[in-house]
C-alpha cells in the first residue's frame, strides 16, 4: 500500500501562509482563456439580454454582471458549451430579478429604445419587425422564444437555463410561438394596409 504524501500547509492555506490576502478557490479560467470565451459568447449574450429586455443599457449592465458571477462561481461548469449555458442561466436569473423589482412609473425613466421600437418607423430591420411583437409577450415567453429560435437551444437546455421543468417547455414554447406568430402576421398585414 502506498504511503500517503503529507499535504503541504501551503496547499491548505495558500495565501495565508504566503502572507498575502487570502482568496477563494482558483478562478474558472485565466485572463487569456476568459478573453477568448468572452469574445465567443459576449455578442450572443448581449443580443439575448437586449432583445428580451428591450433595453440595451440594461443588457450592458446585466452582461457584465453575468460574466463576473460566472468567474466567481463556486462550482463552475466544465467546458465551453456548459460554460456558455451557465452564463445564459445567470443572465436569465438576473433578468428575472430585474423584472421582479418595481418598474419605473415615470415615462422619463423608460428606455428610449422602447419608443423607437414601437414608433412604427419605416425601419425594415428585424428590430422594427420583432421589437413591437416581443414587447407584447410575457417576459418569460420572450426568453423561451429567444433561447429556442435565436440561440437554437434544445428543450432540455432551455429547461436547464430557465429552471423550468423540461416537460413544460414544449407546451410553453408552443403557446408562445403561436402567440408571437399571430402578432407578427397582424403586424405584417397592418404594414401592407398602410400606403
Amino acid at each position, binding site marked *: 500500500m502506498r504511503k500517503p504524501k503529507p499535504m503541504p500547509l501551503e496547499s491548505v492555506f495558500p495565501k495565508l501562509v504566503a502572507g498575502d490576502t487570502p482568496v477563494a478557490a482558483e478562478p474558472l479560467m485565466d*485572463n487569456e482563456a476568459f478573453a477568448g470565451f468572452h469574445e465567443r459568447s459576449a455578442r450572443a449574450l448581449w443580443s439575448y439580454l437586449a432583445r428580451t429586455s428591450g433595453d440595451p443599457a440594461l443588457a450592458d449592465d446585466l452582461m457584465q454582471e453575468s460574466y463576473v458571477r460566472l468567474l466567481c462561481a463556486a462550482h463552475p461548469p466544465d467546458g465551453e458549451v456548459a460554460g456558455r449555458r451557465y452564463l445564459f442561466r445567470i443572465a436569465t436569473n438576473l433578468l428575472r430579478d430585474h423584472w421582479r423589482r418595481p418598474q419605473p412609473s415615470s415615462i422619463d425613466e423608460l428606455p428610449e429604445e422602447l419608443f423607437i421600437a414601437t414608433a412604427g418607423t419605416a425601419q425594415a430591420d428585424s428590430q422594427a419587425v420583432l421589437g413591437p411583437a416581443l414587447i407584447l409577450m410575457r417576459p418569460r415567453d420572450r426568453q423561451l422564444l*429567444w433561447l429556442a429560435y435565436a440561440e437554437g437551444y434544445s428543450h432540455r437546455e432551455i429547461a436547464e437555463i430557465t429552471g423550468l421543468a423540461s416537460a413544460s417547455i414544449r407546451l410553453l414554447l408552443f403557446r408562445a410561438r403561436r402567440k408571437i406568430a399571430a402578432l407578427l402576421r397582424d403586424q405584417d398585414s397592418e404594414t401592407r394596409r398602410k400606403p
Partner: protein
Amino acid sequence: MNPGACSREKELTQLLARGQWPEATPLDLRNHVSACRRCGDLVLVTETFRRARIEAIGSARPGSPGALWWRAQLRRRTAAVERVGKPILGAQIFALSINLILMVGLVASQARHGLGWLTRMEALLPAAGMHLERLWPAALLNPGWGILVIVPAIATLALLGGAVVYFSSER
C-alpha cells in the same frame, strides 16, 4: 402533452437548424408548410428570430474582458476576506461576552460582600510590615460605600475593553 402535433415538424426543425430552408427543402414539405399553420408558425418565428439575432450581434457592445476579469478577482478576494473575517468576529464577540459576564458577576459579588477580601489581606500582611489601610480610604471597607468605587472602575474598564475590541476589529 403535444398540442396539435404535426408529423413533419421535427423534419422541418432539423432543416431550419441546418440552414437548409427553403432552398434544400423538398417541394412537398414546402407545400405542407404553406398549408399547415403550425409549421408555418415555426418557419415564420424561426426566420424572424434568426434575422433578429444576426442584427443584434452586429450591434452588440461586448466591452472589455480584462476589466471584467479583474472585477471578478476583486469580488472573489473581498468574499474570501469576509469569509476569513467571520470567525474572528465571532471570537471577538465571544470574548467580549465572557468578559461582560465576569464583570457582572464580580460587581454582583462585591455589591453583596463589599471589600471583605481587603480586610482578610490586611490581617495577613502586617507580618510583612505592610499597612494597606493607608492606601485606600476607610469608606472602601464599608460594604455600602465600596460599590460606589468599584462600579465606576469596572465601567471604565468595560468601556476601555469595548474601545479595544472596536479598534482591533476595524478593517
